[in-house]
């Protein structure tokens, strides 16, 4: 166990950011999911929420393809499919939506929070779902709150659906009392096991009041106010952060909690903000940090020096590339992201090798040309591209798993490293 834990403050302040090539911005065909996909994990997090997509058969088909077998476990999401007669006139559409919601709530009285989720078709025909949400809230308000956000492909990419959902919740949060002690808010839906680990660590650090956003139940959503300090657990929460800041909350800048270093830095940002003693901080995080380093050690042997290429998917690409480069010795060739929030990712970007290409947006055919030219050891991409690239002899890691699996924090660092090591190990063991 090393006695001194290097703390990221030094990295952030003392080192000048490495000279970096300008960000490559591309426009063309994008091989990405739309924001509706966020429903798949959001509905599991908020246990009394229901997500009603107002869209087309395509939207329903997408959800069913993305949810896989989950569709059969009585999921708390559905699609109100717009039909020809709905397109005929707007008034009819309003009545139809009310009818569908009435029927849904009558059958599911346990639902406390209903999200009307906008889609491309509903946005294009300018169906006013926010008005509908207000109207339905007035009608069902006693038992169910009705909100709306857009998960459409024209506005949101994959994880941005969570951002849109949380951002619409922020104005609904109660206000903290102005003279209350500072509270810490963890922002972003995390698997319950990870959330519990973080809550335990913050308790050990001695931060009295820590809450998660979103909470597991609609009635337990945290209050927010000028005494709120928040840590983003996910890099795709730009609008949510802005909405929280609009209510006076203050964002704590940090790396994202991936790997030993990312998690240490993230926890440290809170420790500093809450005036936790440095020695106490080090002693609290030391066991977890050491476990994380031990857990990723064997993957490091396999991954060090390997070249990795990220295609854009979830906005997790930059922090994950940082983790793989900094802690596992991988060489990121290109890190593609659907959207780059420079402020939230400033520390992450500073830690990436200077010659790593950062690309924002996508022209998938051109990007695949670059993948083929570079022939990376590992390509992180969506399921539409993974098997075709494997068939070309390129080893891939499908990206969606990174959103669905517990990967944050010290005790998931080994699992996270193994997600990248496993495809390479498999490539080596197969004799067919």
């Amino acid at each position, binding site marked *: 166990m090393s006695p001194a834990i290097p703390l990221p403050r030094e990295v952030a302040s003392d080192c000048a950011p490495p000279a970096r090539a300008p960000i490559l911005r591309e426009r063309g065909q994008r091989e990405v999911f739309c924001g509706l996909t966020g429903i798949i994990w959001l509905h599991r997090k908020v246990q009394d929420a229901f997500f009603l997509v107002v869209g087309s058969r395509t939207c329903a088909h997408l959800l069913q393809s993305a949810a896989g077998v989950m569709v059969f476990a009585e999921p708390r999401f559905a699609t*109100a499919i717009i039909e020809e007669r709905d397109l005929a006139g707007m008034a009819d559409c309003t009545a139809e939506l009310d009818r*569908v919601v009435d029927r849904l709530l009558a059958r599911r009285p346990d639902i406390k929070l209903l999200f009307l989720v906008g889609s491309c078709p509903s946005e294009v025909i300018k169906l006013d779902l926010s008005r509908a949400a207000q109207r339905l809230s007035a009608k069902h308000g006693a038992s169910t709150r009705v909100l709306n956000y857009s998960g459409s492909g024209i506005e949101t990419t994959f994880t941005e659906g969570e951002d849109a959902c949380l951002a619409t919740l922020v104005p609904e949060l109660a206000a903290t009392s102005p003279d209350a002690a500072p509270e810490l808010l963890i922002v972003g839906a995390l698997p319950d096991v990870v959330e519990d680990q973080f809550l335990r660590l913050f308790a050990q650090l001695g931060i009295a009041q820590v809450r998660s956003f979103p909470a597991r139940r609609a009635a337990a959503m945290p209050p927010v106010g000028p005494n709120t300090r928040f840590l983003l657990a996910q890099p795709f929460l730009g609008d949510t952060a802005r909405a929280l800041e609009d209510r006076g909350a203050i964002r704590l800048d940090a790396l994202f909690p991936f790997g030993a270093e990312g998690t240490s830095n993230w926890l440290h940002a809170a420790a500093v903000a809450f005036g936790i003693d440095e020695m106490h901080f080090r002693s609290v995080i030391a066991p977890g940090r050491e476990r994380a380093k031990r857990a990723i050690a064997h993957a490091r042997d396999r991954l060090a020096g390997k070249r990795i290429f990220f295609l854009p998917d979830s906005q997790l690409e930059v922090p994950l590339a940082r983790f793989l480069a900094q802690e596992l010795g991988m060489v990121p060739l290109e890190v593609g992201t659907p959207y780059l929030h420079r402020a939230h990712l400033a520390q992450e970007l500073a830690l990436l090798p200077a010659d790593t290409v950062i690309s924002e947006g996508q022209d998938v055919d051109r990007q695949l040309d670059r993948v083929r030219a570079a022939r990376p050891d590992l390509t992180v991409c969506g399921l539409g591209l993974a098997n075709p690239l494997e068939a070309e002899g390129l080893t891939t890691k499908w990206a969606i798993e990174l959103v669905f699996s517990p990967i944050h924090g010290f005790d998931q660092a080994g699992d996270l490293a193994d997600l990248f090591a496993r495809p390479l190990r498999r490539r080596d063991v197969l004799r067919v």
Partner: protein
Amino acid sequence: MQLTVWTYEGPPHVGAMRIATAMEGVHYVLHAPQGDTYADLLFTMIERRGKRPPVTYTTFQARDLGKDTAALFQTAVRDAVDRFAPQALLVGASCTAELIQDDPAGLASALRLPIPVIALELPSYQRKENWGAAETFYQLVRAMCSGAPAGTVATPPAKAGAQSRDGGNEVLSAPTSTFANGPRPSPGGSRPVRKKANIVGPTALGFRHRDDVVEITRLLETLGIGINVVAPLGATPADLARLPDADFNISLYPEIADTACRWLERTYGQKTVRTVPIGHGATRDFIAEVAALAGVDPAAALDTSRLPWWSRSVDSTYLTGKRVFIFGDATHAVAAARVARDEFGFEVVGLGCYNREFAREIRTAALVYGLEPLITDDYLAVEEAIARLQPELVLGTQMERHIAKRLRIPCAVISAPVHVQDFPARYSPQMGFEGANVLFDTWVHPLVMGLEEHLLTMFRDDFEFSDHAGASHLGHGASPILPREPGEGDREHSANGGGGATAVVSPSASPLHHSAEEAERSPSPADAGEEQEGWSPEAERELLKIPFFVRGKARRNTERYATEHGIAAITLDTLYDAKAHYAR
């Protein structure tokens, strides 16, 4: 608006993708918002293809709306033609692009491309996947057979004038077909002219299409009939232009092939074989039909499957009269019903399909079995029907597999939509004689498992018949047939397949739809108006001693008997009276 959790079919542009992906040398430019590329993974994951589907999406975003989506579309078309150099191009709009009303046909036409361009009009808010596939294939066949010159855009017949029959034939270099006169006596009395057939209908993402084509090709070769073109699976646009060279067409999957076959019939006088060769008897009928059209002796191909003997062997006696519920696409459902009754000795108690376009076929078949057909795309209605009928076997799609698991009824899959395990590595056709062998094994397997499970449970728990012991093949959870405690709300539905990051259970979610229990308790039409007092504890206990896979039938029969005889409280005697009454 229609409240939907599950859909049997995707939108029509997914049908068009199934055609484009099945073929070689075709590219499809789809005007669609960012996100619609999700459909690619149906082909790369479920069907496990090693190539990206030949589809370019314009993936427009909000900032593009109202200014340059049309330009975006044209750029995408130009880039796709340059990069992929297809022989023919499909262009069309997905549901959202249909609303913004760019005109793919006009925009593509303005580009004066060096290849034929087929513009698709697929009404997303009215039609679905199978229709989209049939329409796309028809438009492609029509355009290629009419010798669509490069640079022109073929549009649907509503806009363009109907192609004249002769006009269509002129562009062909092939001889006119002569099937109508039967086998043509060849000059000098030497070998007769070998007749040629097209195999029409197999696509990408088709349930067992890959192996069905192999099986049918083998059958035709045995008969000495040549294969002219197999389409769309594996065909190029140039191959489609050769379709009229054949003597006749085999419509293997009417959902996809019928529109094109009818046009070929009208335009070139080609006859169509419409018997779908699923099952032993249907395969023999198919051979007879094909042999008659080709003027060959069917005897050579009347090889037999093992199904007849397997079905006659004494081990199969217990299959007699098993009550089976059948649901799927109309073609597979109708074929399965015939096999179930005539070749397995089952009783068909329910028959239905989700594709309304083929409702007539299902109605005709349902008459044969004296049934009211179930034509719906709402899986809740299907679940209700299954819970009400309490069949002993369900034959359906992956959705019926899950419904059956929930109701603890054995099940086999006979139709799309299916999941990844039904695109198997091994050879497993549904059609032809080997297909009949596959059907026998596939359908009997879950039943044998049911019997095996019963015996294992019986010996393990020594007459206790504990229903809380997990059922390994048929899912977990309390049997819906059992009476439930009022407070016993949380029943876990274990997701099938276990692994995978997305497999979860939501233990606290209460059902959106009628649960089996509600269906069980709600009066069936026969009971309407009749007050059902219910079961005495003693009779209830006795019911639990009956193996779970026939318990539902026993409960249903007893209740019907009680109703018919005006018995309010069901006692032990009622149970056994009913048993005697319905004894077969």
